[in-house]
């Protein structure tokens, strides 16, 4: 194997950069962590590679077959708004699409200040272009080229480097957007110009503009980052065409696709999407196909559903308050994590979340000035966490500070004991999470009855059984590396890229050829794009999908062409599929109504080799000395919980609850009534035996 022995997944988080190294010869995976370097995260990534060279036996960067990367660089820039202002060009008269958005106020409607989400473009950076395309794709009014030249001059004065062009009905006829780009190429050289007819040729102007603004704002910094990372990696001997970035849809794209433009909007869930892929792969080896993944970090928890081994996806959603219409894994974020604040209010309530102590000052037990207790403080106060073994003993935490904070801010005002106060905090936190999950499940029509809860993130496994109990879920899985989950997920992912084109086609008799022509054209575009990225045509598999609706309805359902039963009469076959899908999701179908296709989609996939990963090398089953049991406060009383180190557990072991299983990046808790089993892949399988 030699030169191609290793696959490396690198996920950059807020604090740590996680590196997962897969040895293709042995299928063994090793994990290591280096500090993230926020000013230029590529330094941390390169440090991680150097570290791997030092500690992983036989590892040589030059022998890496694939470098797979997950990053939150665009998401962080969006949250912190650290990007240069972009400009937006819209059709003359249509400025209202930007200022009114979709007309809805977001946030608390009792707060009279609540309005539209903050726009990513300043009012004086929005320009109107005299032109018009009609719904029938015909030119209603020619483009005024002189006006575009004047706009370009103004953009030069404003020193704008990134321009989004989003004209009405450009998805039906891109000619004016293309002409605008030609003019800007001459008049505003060096600027990045993105066209909505290329990035997102989809109907509905505001969500398209919103998506374009995200892209135009974030793309320059993503490209700078990828450029500098690629320089560093190729300088160490990696081949440029084997560098890949994770997309929000749970697939990979090569760095060259990022550089070609238009892909920044597909990277906002790069990190969490990899985590969901890891859950799918790991649970598959454990024979589980219906999952609820719960990734709990310091400030929040990410939730996703997996049905029949596939993560649920959306084609339109909202991130950090911005509408974004690209295919993404369907993730929900809840404000519940290890740093979630808890305190009694003046009205006599116990308020848990959604505010968080964040990394600074962090929980009270860190001794960095945090006064208000957090869930981590409650964990420590009740014996669920060992103060001597926090982050594997790398960090000092003080139980006395945790108890003090709980006493002052919860126990005393409510007149209850600190233990009861701490347990109330934890119970409320679990119920809040479970309740948010229940509503999300109802929204998506997901039945959690037979699901397995996959707990990851540092704070995920301590309360997984509590959340599961509240949800009526009886199985919990804690993977071997819950704290470096996204890095592992990167190793298991294929190249997946999505292409879309709106063209409204009514599903009447005789529409078949038009539908196939649309697919063929879009497929050609997809194959050309992937070929340009260096993939062999023979390895590209195109899946044909479409968005359809009852004619005139306000929303669409996504269908797979492959699911059509009758391909001889395609319009009727598609309509039947739509009725069936509608009935499955909404409980009924209107068979007399006309169905129409709104958008065509191609999902282009290049399969990566798959591995059954063995994360636990046999020698890792160290003969750790047995730990003494610990007093844990549970359900209103102190109980003795057994304590074991994860590394000391051999596959096949079984342990009855109550038991605490400690490892450097997390602690799992099986309450009384739960049983823990370790499977061949090192997963902890916790199940509720129903004796509670």
């Amino acid at each position, binding site marked *: 194997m030699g030169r191609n022995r290793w696959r490396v997944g690198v996920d950059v988080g807020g604090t740590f950069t996680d590196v997962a190294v897969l040895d293709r010869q042995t299928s063994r995976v090793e994990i290591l962590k280096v500090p993230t370097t926020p000013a230029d995260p590529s330094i941390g990534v390169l440090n991680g590679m150097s570290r791997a060279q030092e500690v992983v036996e036989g590892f040589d960067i030059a022998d890496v077959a694939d470098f797979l990367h997950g990053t939150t660089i665009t998401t962080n820039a969006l949250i912190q708004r650290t990007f240069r202002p972009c400009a937006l060009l819209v059709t003359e*008269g*249509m*400025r*209202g*699409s930007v*200022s*009114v*958005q*979709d*007309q*809805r*106020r977001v946030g*608390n*409607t*009792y*707060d*009279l*200040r*609540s*309005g*539209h989400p903050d726009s990513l473009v300043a009012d*004086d950076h929005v320009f109107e272009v005299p032109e018009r395309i009609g*719904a029938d794709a015909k030119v*209603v009014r020619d483009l005024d080229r002189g006006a575009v030249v004047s706009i370009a001059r103004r953009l030069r004065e404003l020193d704008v480097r990134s321009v989004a062009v989003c004209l*009405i*009905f450009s998805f039906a006829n891109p000619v004016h957007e293309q002409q605008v780009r030609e003019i800007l190429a001459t008049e505003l050289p060096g600027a990045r110009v993105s066209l909505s007819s290329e990035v997102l040729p989809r*109907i*509905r*102007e*505001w969500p398209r503009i919103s998506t374009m603004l995200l892209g135009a704002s974030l793309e320059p910094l993503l490209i700078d980052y990828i450029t500098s990372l690629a320089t560093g990696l190729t300088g160490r001997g990696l081949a440029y065409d084997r560098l890949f970035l994770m997309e929000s849809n749970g697939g990979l794209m090569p760095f060259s696709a990022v550089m070609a433009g238009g892909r920044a909007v597909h990277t906002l869930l790069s990190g969490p999407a990899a985590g969901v892929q890891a859950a799918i792969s790991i649970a598959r080896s454990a024979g589980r196909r219906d999952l609820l993944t719960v990734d709990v970090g310091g400030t929040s928890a990410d939730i996703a559903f997996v049905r029949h081994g596939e993560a649920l996806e959306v084609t339109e959603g909202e991130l950090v308050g911005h509408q974004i219409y690209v295919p993404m894994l369907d993730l929900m974020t809840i404000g519940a994590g290890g740093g979630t604040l808890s305190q009694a209010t003046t*009205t*006599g*309530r*116990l308020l848990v979340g959604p505010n968080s102590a964040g990394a600074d000052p962090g929980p009270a037990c860190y001794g960095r000035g945090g006064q208000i207790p957090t869930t981590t403080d409650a964990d420590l106060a009740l014996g669920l966490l060992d103060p001597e073994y926090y982050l594997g003993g790398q960090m000092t935490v003080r139980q006395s500070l945790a108890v003090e904070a709980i006493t002052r801010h919860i126990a005393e005002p*409510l*007149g*209850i*004991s600190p233990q*009861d106060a701490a347990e*109330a905090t934890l*119970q*409320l936190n679990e*119920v*809040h999470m479970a*309740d948010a999950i*229940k*509503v999300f499940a*109802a*929204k998506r029509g997901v039945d959690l009855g037979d699901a397995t809860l996959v707990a990851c993130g540092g704070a995920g496994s301590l309360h997984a059984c509590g959340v599961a109990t509240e949800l009526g879920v009886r199985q919990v899985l804690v993977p071997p590396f819950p704290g470096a989950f996204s890095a592992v997920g990167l190793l298991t992912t294929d190249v997946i890229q999505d292409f879309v084109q709106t063209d*409204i086609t009514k599903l009447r008799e005789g529409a078949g050829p038009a539908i196939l022509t649309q697919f063929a054209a879009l497929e050609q575009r997809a194959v050309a794009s992937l070929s340009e990225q260096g993939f062999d045509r023979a390895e590209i598999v195109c899946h044909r999908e479409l968005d359809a609706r*009852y*004619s*005139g*309805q*306000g929303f669409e359902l996504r269908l797979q062409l492959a699911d059509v039963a009758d391909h001889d009469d395609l319009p009727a076959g598609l309509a039947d599929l739509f009725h069936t899908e509608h009935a499955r*999701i*909404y*409980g*009924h179908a209107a068979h007399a109504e*006309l169905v129409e296709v709104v958008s065509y989609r191609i999902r282009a996939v290049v399969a990566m080799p798959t591995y059954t990963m063995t994360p636990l090398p046999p020698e890792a089953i160290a003969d750790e000395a047995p730990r003494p049991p610990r007093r844990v406060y549970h359900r209103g009383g102190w109980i003795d919980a057994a304590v074991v180190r994860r590394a000391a557990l051999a596959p096949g072991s079984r342990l009855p609850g109550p038991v605490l299983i400690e490892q450097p990046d997390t602690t799992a808790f099986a309450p009384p009534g739960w049983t823990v089993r370790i499977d061949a892949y090192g997963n902890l399988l916790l199940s509720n035996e129903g004796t509670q």
Partner: protein
Amino acid sequence: MTTATVLAAELARSRLNATIGELTQLLYRSAYSTLMRESRDCSISLLSDRGEALVDRPGPFHGSSYNYLVKRVLERYDDLAPGDVFMTNHPYDAGIPHTPDLAVVVPAFVGDTLVGFSASIAHKSDFGGSVIGSASMDATQLYQEGLLLPLTRVARGSAEAELDPGVMGIIAANVRTPDLFFGDMRAQLGVTRVGAARLSALAERTGVEVLRGCFAMLLDQGERALRDVIAGWPDGEATVTGFLDSDGIRLDTPVKIAVTVRIAGDSVEFDLTGSDDQTLGPVNMTKMYADSAVFYAVISCAAPDFGFSDSVRRVVTIKRRPGSLFDPNTLAPVGAATSMQHRLVDLCFEALGMLVPGAGSAHSGGSGGTVGIEWASAEQRGRSFQYEVLGTAMGAVHDSDGVSGVTAYYTNLGITPVEVLESQYPVRINRFELITDSAGAGRYRGGLSYRREYEALAPASVRRRSERGRFPARGVAGGHDGSLATVSIRRSDGTVERLPVAGRYELHPHDLLTIEGSGAGGYGDPRERPADVVLADVRAGAVSVQAAAAEYGVVIDERIELDEAGTRLARQEARR
């Protein structure tokens, strides 16, 4: 206060919120008609055994109905039993917003003990009456607004009990689209029954008595949250009056609304008795509707994070005069009360702001109303009716500009994209933009409203429901008024007709219909608005150079830069 109850109450709060959230999703998903599924004009709630709403779901609008609805069930029936189902659409008999809304109530039991109620309200595509859709702008009697179903027990005995065939037969004989109606009704009933089962399960799990204690505590906490704030407000009385353009029937007669607020200690009274007598047209408000407006205003000023629950009724009293707009007594029509709702909130905020420093806002642009266009040559029957809900703007508050381009207050509805409208109807939208200078000037300016220009590509008949053609959104604390709403048509021969803001208009191909919403009021003296902020407004197109000088005393030169000396002079002169 014991441990168990503080924790148990918080658990109950979270579980009630989540369960109502789940049920609401079920209601959306199972709905048969597109109206219910897409407009989402439906809600469900779980209430205490005394009919009290406990958490801010579904919020102030339908939320204020449930109390009347369930109290009426408790008053009228002393033999409630598991399996009972009650239905009504009656605005007066049971506090339902308007006649197209069907309400379903199912009591929840543990054994023989009543533990609470599951209740839902959902708009139906038609409930009989003189026009399809039931709510008509032309109605002068409630009877024209639909079949009236007083509160009626339609099932007894078990959770699977069949509905009373007599009552169902009467409904079937009166509604225009019975399939759609009963499809939606079955979905609504199913979800409401699930709600009752969930509430019973919660009571069983928590313990019936403990859950009762939790309900009491939730209401006490909500009450305390309001009283703690209101106790800090200065005692006093303030009266404000405002007008609607008309009641929709007597077009020349404005409708007067008078609101007197009295703050005393830790409670507030809203006295609406000075308002006009009930009107012939359908702008009258049932009690629940006026409640929703008043409660929204109080909660917004006192406890926006707590939201609506029936605790607010312990703290806020509303005085009404029988036979007047807010307590009509002869089955007066109520189907077009939306514009009244916005005006009542405007006035409540203004009155509160006169007593409580910094509270409330300037007036909003009001309800932006609706525009319905019936196209003559659409290719399909039933798809030729274009319908949009338009927005206006929010008034300025003591520390922020008003929000532009929204449906004000708790209406919060979306707008249909231009590309969707043009793909479906023979129309082209040439302009969709905020209107320069539509906002009332102020230290903080009001929100701007927007303009839509529709070019007809086929003959059409337009039905516009709107107001604020005569009475602008008032500025407060020295802020100026917003602009008025307008409607005009530019005929293809170039003539321009200015038309009343509500009414019917005929369009011919290539006529241009322009609809402008009214801008919202400003807060505080415009001459105190920092000159650089006014400059930014000018650059953004929110304020014209002329208005900057005339209203704000800010002089902007032809390069669109600030003339500092000129501004200083203009502002000094104004002060003299």
